[in-house]
């Protein structure tokens, strides 16, 4: 249903921001996320963490990248916007659309509330390695969380995005491996970790169906965070900076980091540019149509006026 994944409106974000659901406490990452250097504010990591190896870094960052948004969902959200712009502007349709949007917002807010509760429950029940993984991701998406409505929303997005974003992770990993930027082993590790994490995220809540709904809602929130398409590359870079902060990175990891950002930005850019272009065309078309309609109405009015005057003249002539 299009409206269920309509790009997020303030109402949905507000309900998350001001909700009572505080972010679940998760253990600070010990192995998947690096130790944060002094002077870096925000989400704190456990001191004395062991430096992760390349595979672990790749796993942490791949999942982080997933959380930043699913391009397919972005595409759908943009298409929904396009459809909104492209529909006619009859008053009844506008009212109907508004009502449906409110229903969709309410549904989304409700699903996010449920998801926040499930995330808290899941964080308590999850095995230690999952807590570490979630902790690493939450740390890495701090910048996104502040935009999307707090760490609670980010935590929700984490579990849900693991489910909706597995394909893009695998795709990116395989491409990086093909280009020799990461090893095949690292690519396999990342894909496998995401698969396991998604299974755990779905199972520990005991609410597979609800989590699937939450995935849609959370992806919507993530899409909101990256709504300004041109800033996506910056956000990817910002998240990766946090994820890799304080790590004495090997050059191959640096290459991996920048290449990951490029690939993601490129893919999003192509899809988003197409959608924006279509949207702008649709808006232009509507504008032209309105102008044409206005001209037509003026002409019709003028014609009617002339017709009236002619009739009046005829009547006066007969009189």
């Amino acid at each position: 249903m299009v409206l269920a994944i309509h790009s997020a409106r303030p109402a949905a974000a507000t309900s998350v921001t001001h909700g009572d659901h505080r972010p679940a406490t998760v253990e600070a990452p010990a192995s998947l996320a690096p130790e944060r250097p002094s002077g870096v504010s925000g989400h704190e990591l456990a001191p004395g963490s062991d430096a992760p190896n390349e595979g672990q870094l790749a796993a942490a960052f791949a999942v982080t990248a997933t959380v930043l948004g699913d391009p397919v969902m972005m595409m759908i959200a943009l298409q929904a916007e396009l459809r909104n712009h492209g529909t006619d502007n009859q008053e009844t349709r506008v009212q109907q659309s508004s009502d449906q949007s409110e229903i969709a917002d309410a549904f989304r807010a409700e699903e996010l509330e449920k998801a926040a509760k499930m995330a808290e429950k899941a964080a308590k029940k999850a095995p230690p390695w999952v807590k570490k993984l979630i902790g690493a991701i939450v740390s890495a998406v701090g910048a996104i969380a502040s935009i999307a409505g707090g760490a609670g929303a980010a935590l929700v997005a984490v579990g849900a995005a693991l489910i909706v974003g597995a394909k893009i992770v695998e795709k990116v990993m395989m491409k990086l491996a093909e280009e020799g930027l990461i090893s095949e082993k690292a690519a396999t590790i990342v894909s496998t970790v995401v698969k396991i994490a998604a299974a755990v995220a779905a199972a520990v809540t005991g609410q597979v169906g609800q989590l699937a709904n939450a995935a849609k809602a959370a992806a919507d929130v993530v899409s909101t965070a990256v709504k300004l398409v041109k800033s996506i590359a910056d956000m990817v870079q910002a998240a990766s900076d946090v994820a890799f902060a304080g790590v004495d990175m090997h050059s191959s990891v640096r290459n991996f980091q920048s290449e990951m950002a490029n690939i993601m930005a490129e893919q999003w850019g192509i899809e988003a540019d197409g959608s924006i272009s279509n949207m702008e065309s649709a808006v232009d078309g509507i504008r032209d149509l309105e102008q044409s309609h206005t001209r037509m109405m003026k002409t019709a009015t003028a014609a009617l006026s002339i017709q009236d005057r002619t009739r009046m003249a005829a009547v006066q002539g007969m009189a």
Partner: protein
Amino acid sequence: MNSIITEQERSAAASALAHKAELAQRLGSHHKSVELLDAAMRLDPTPDRIRAWLGASASGSSGVEREALLEIASWF
């Protein structure tokens, strides 16, 4: 549609699948065994089940894929 399966039911189903996986392995159907362990892991992703699935997957793999799967298994 919401899942109404309980934890106990999931765990029981996963155990049954793991048992079938063992039988499949004995019958020489390694691929089927891995599939069943995969399903069991998704139903009840405890460290033991994840490790079992990874181990079975690794035994059917070679090279770097095998190394990767064994490394993840060592995390559990």
